[in-house]
């Protein structure tokens, strides 16, 4: 029925099977749609956020998907600027994942702010000293860059490619993609950093506050590094999942190995700096505020186990797995390493968002707990549904994996 839209020389499932596959994701989107409507119409009282938990599950999701979506800019940087040509085979997938992550995050932020209609005030009445203003500027601009990077791929659709003007436009865009890759790298560097900076500058919250270099707290640099360590791992995971679901080899192993190796090195470097930062914080910021390290973990479920999990199980272990060639060449270990790596970064964003706010600062203040409502989960999960849907549609109708045809020759 829709086979005329498929890329040439590749096999796709029947429309019926495809529709069945998209159903759960459509359900997630419907759940998210209802939740978004309620939050916009009735207000944020539909959530379980309060004046203690000003940021909650949505911000954790935002930060997590933005970090995981860093694979887009970083793979572009490695391909076009560093010259790792083998990554061209996975670059389209990285761009789509990045686009999904960033557009999803911005949509979520639009619901998260109390006055969505005034969102543009960030640009109009900008406070240049605010890290959040920098984040907003850079992610908005970068979403534009991602759209430009995504556009040539859309124009490569078999039917669109027949239109001469569109084909020429797409080819010309391809030709100047290095410029956009560089722009994307610049913008991403600043917004990944500013997301970390957002917490690091909260000097009246000793749990989050970090010293730093000039106006940038150490979290600025740590967030960049952790994002470029986890982003490629997430790209590997998504592509491997696509390979498992389609039961095809979509990307040559060399591309996976290059990304995994780079991810491993970056994660190892991040771990060294993260541990240094943590020790520096324990002996610097914390005692100056009159606190001891364990004071932050006296109450509530967010114990010191989170530190052990983040740095040990989900930090050092995946770094070792991805650094050892024999381990990362084994598919099971590669996936395990990437999964642990990505989980570690999600824990890091969770700790900075939720635990920072859960820890009381005034000695007579109380620890307050928080659990999201179904509306909050609905909007967060809708991003996952949207991601699966957009990636599936892209895979079905666009030549996402340039080597797919070569790696999976049709029998007839």
């Amino acid at each position, binding site marked *: 029925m829709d086979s005329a839209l498929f890329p040439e020389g590749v096999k796709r499932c029947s429309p019926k099977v495809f529709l069945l596959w998209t159903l759960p994701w459509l359900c997630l989107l419907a759940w998210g749609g209802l939740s978004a409507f309620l939050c916009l119409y009735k*207000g*944020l*009282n539909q959530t379980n*956020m*309060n*004046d*203690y938990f*000003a*940021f909650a599950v949505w911000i954790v999701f935002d930060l997590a998907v933005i970090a995981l979506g860093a694979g887009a800019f970083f793979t572009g940087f490695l391909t076009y600027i560093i010259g790792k040509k083998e990554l061209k085979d996975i670059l389209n997938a990285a761009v789509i994942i990045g686009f999904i992550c960033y557009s999803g995050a911005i949509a979520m932020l639009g619901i*998260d*702010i*109390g*006055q969505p209609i*005034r*969102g543009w*005030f*960030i640009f*109009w*009445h*900008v*406070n240049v*000293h*605010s*890290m*959040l*203003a920098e984040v*907003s500027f850079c992610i908005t601009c970068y979403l534009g860059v991602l759209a430009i990077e995504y556009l040539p791929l859309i124009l490569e659709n078999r039917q669109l490619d027949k239109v001469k003007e569109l084909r020429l436009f797409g080819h010309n865009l391809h030709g100047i993609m290095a410029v956009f890759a560089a722009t994307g790298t610049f913008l991403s560097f600043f917004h990944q950093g500013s997301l970390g900076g*957002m917490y690091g*500058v*909260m*000097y*009246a*919250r*000793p749990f989050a506050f970090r010293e730093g270099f000039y106006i940038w707290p150490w979290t600025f640099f740590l967030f960049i590094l952790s994002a470029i360590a986890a982003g490629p791992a997430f790209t590997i995971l998504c592509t491997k999942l696509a390979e498992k679901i389609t039961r095809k080899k979509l990307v040559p192993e060399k591309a996976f190995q290059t990304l995994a190796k780079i991810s491993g090195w970056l994660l190892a470097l991040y771990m060294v700096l993260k541990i240094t930062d943590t020790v520096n914080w324990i002996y610097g910021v914390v*005692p*100056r*505020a*009159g*606190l*001891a390290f364990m*004071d932050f973990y006296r109450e509530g479920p967010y114990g010191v186990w989170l530190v052990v999990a983040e740095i040990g199980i989900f930090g050092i272990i995946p770094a070792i797995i991805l650094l050892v060639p024999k381990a990362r060449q084994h598919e099971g270990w590669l996936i395990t390493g990437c999964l642990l790596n990505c989980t570690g970064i999600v824990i890091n964003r969770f700790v900075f968002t939720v635990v*920072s*706010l859960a820890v009381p*600062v*005034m*000695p*007579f*203040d109380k620890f*307050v707990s928080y659990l999201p409502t179904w509306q909050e989960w609905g909007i967060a999960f809708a991003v996952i549904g949207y991601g699966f849907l957009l990636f599936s549609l892209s895979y079905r109708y666009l030549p996402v994996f340039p080597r797919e045809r070569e790696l999976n020759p049709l029998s007839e």
Partner: protein
Amino acid sequence: MEKGHGHGNSYGMVIDLDKCTGCGTCMVACAAENNLAVRPDESDKQRSITWMRLYKVTNGKEFPHTEVCYFPRPCMQCDHHTPCVSVCPATATKMDYHTGIVSQIYTRCIGCRYCIAACPYHARTFNWWDAYFPKGKGLERYLSPEVSPRMRGVVEKCTFCHHRLMRAKNNAYAEERRELEEGEYITACTEACPAQAITFGDLKNPEHKVSELVKSRYAFRLLEKLGTEPKVYYLSTKDWVRRMADNYLPGEFKPIAKVKLG
């Protein structure tokens, strides 16, 4: 420096905790003065809008040695590099260097709540619901025309009754004065406190009582170590109360030896 027009004022508050009985009049006066909306059910205190909040603290000892103290907590009106002003992406909160008061521009606030996250005093509250003033209960009759009510989705906080400053200035200008006398501008909580525990004035003006009070050996501020430089000071002769105002490592807190005067 040019005299007058409020140049160089730094309005501040001194709350004598030894006098505070915890009656809550300051909270009520503040809510009435500043058009604070209420909910039919106000049991969820984590979403309750309160500009002035009372914290009850005890010395943790068993009866009959138990002692209780109340910390009335307005916005601390932090100075210079305030935790909230620097983080607001849309410049919806500003510190006025002429008065030292941290303002909140409700019509500019986008409701991102970054300021709430950055404030360690929980002095900022978010409007989770549309403003609501129950009809037929008398509440609508004392809504102040001087204070704009807040809409859903924005952050609000104590403004040191900024409209009272405007009113006092207008009166002074009408009398062709540029300087305000002590007591001409005081906040609603200061005025209402039956124990006269709250003193309000210009911290920079040596003729104002507050500038003397803050020099007391018993004066302290909340979370002073963090460097937020609050303009709200507290007084207490009790060591355990002063100990409650900040975090201290073992052995770090220095009690004030009770020396008999005279």
